[in-house]
């Protein structure tokens, strides 16, 4: 059994959280101000590029919504760790340090009705997958409320097929408009159950994986129907990437999750 020092996990994750809020690996080399864009859409795209530059050079958070912290952990069965009995407290300590000491916005409330801020942006949203071997990999995404709020889960009938899933994705994108900061990165989960389909959609964002090019092409061909572009104003670029993940499901079910991420796609990973 390999033992990883708990403090090493905390400090590596703290560093990553600070980095992905200002200069995430997922946005390096990204340019929004595409020469193919025109007019207002181009001017707005240039503002997004300027935002990337200022955030990187001045260590300002890319977005004031520094999000809730989503962490997907792949934990080998031959690796363990010191410092705590489970991973959640180590992760929360990293979140606490990065957010409180890093000047990042605290955007988590303890109770959905009372809505009192937890004061340190914990708890992180953690998913752990057990894998073979002795590796410990943390993939992290910080995700704001704007694009979460326009995401959706639906239970379709099997007869709906790919066309029905495409209809749903288009409907979610139409309703979202500029509310969730397009151009969107769209993660689509298909199959599984009501709860796991949402995780499949999240994995599509976390791991750049796409299981169904046919669905992707079907949806991509229909994007011009939306009639909006960058930041929701009239334009041509509502979506910058779309990926789908599939899973086995019940004979009577076709669960679908459409998870939107804003243009500020803040993701990174660390192996320990």
């Amino acid at each position, binding site marked *: 059994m390999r033992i990883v020092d708990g403090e090493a996990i905390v400090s590596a994750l703290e560093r990553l959280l600070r980095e992905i809020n200002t200069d995430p690996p997922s946005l390096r080399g990204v340019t929004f101000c595409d020469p193919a864009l025109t007019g207002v859409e181009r001017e707005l795209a240039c503002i997004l590029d300027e935002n990337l530059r200022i955030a990187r050079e001045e260590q300002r958070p890319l977005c004031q919504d520094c999000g809730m912290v989503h962490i997907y952990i792949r934990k080998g069965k031959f690796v363990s760790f010191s410092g705590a009995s489970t991973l959640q407290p180590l992760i929360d300590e990293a979140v606490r340090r990065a957010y409180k000491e890093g000047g990042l916005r605290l955007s988590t409330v303890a109770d959905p009705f009372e809505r009192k*801020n937890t004061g340190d942006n914990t708890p992180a949203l953690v998913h752990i997958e057990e894998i073979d071997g002795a590796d410990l990999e943390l993939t992290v995404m910080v995700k704001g409320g704007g694009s979460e709020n326009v995401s959706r889960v639906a239970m379709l009938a099997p007869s709906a097929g790919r066309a029905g899933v495409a209809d749903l994705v288009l409907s979610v994108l139409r309703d979202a408009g500029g509310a969730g900061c397009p151009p969107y990165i769209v993660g689509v989960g298909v199959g599984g159950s009501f709860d796991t389909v949402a995780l499949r959609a999240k994995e599509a964002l976390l791991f750049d994986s796409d299981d169904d090019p046919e669905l992707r092409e079907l949806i991509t061909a229909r994007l011009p129907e939306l009639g909006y572009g960058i930041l929701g104003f009239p334009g041509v670029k509502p979506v910058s990437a779309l990926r789908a993940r599939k899973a086995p499901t019940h004979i009577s079910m076709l669960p679908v999750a459409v998870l939107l991420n804003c243009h500020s796609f803040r993701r990174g990973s660390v192996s320990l």
Partner: protein
Amino acid sequence: MNTIACTDIAKLRSVPAGTLTALEGDILTLRDRSLARLAELKKNGEPLPVDLTGRIIFFAGPTPGFADGHGSVGPTTSRRMTAYLPLLADLGVVALIGKGPLDKAALDLLAAHRILYLQAAGGAGAFYGKRITSIKSVAFQELGSEGVFELTVYDFIVMMSLDGRGAAYL
């Protein structure tokens, strides 16, 4: 691009929908929790801690890093504030800055009160953070980023989305 002072509402009202404009001057932040507090105080007939008459409201919650030059602030989704639009109209605001579309009922209500709707670029918190010269807590400090802040801004680029003639660009 035209620069317009936040106090020059007449000039701001003359900007047609679909035009990018740069604001300069003072704006006040409000969002979910601060609006809920104001609504509660108003309902109970208690005095409000801030006068919104003639003010430009920015639906936003800044990061805490402005003191050492690392602050970010950008717009939050406006349609979440729809329930509070009658209150804001009643309190005499002249313009709202947020992001995303508003439904027809909301736009009609704003137009009826000659309230302008401006959109800032969503997710451009560093861009706008750099254009803030001063940030001051004005009310509800205990709400953290959801408190009311007065921001002094320059070259603060916004899209006119509901103009002084009631024309929309969303």
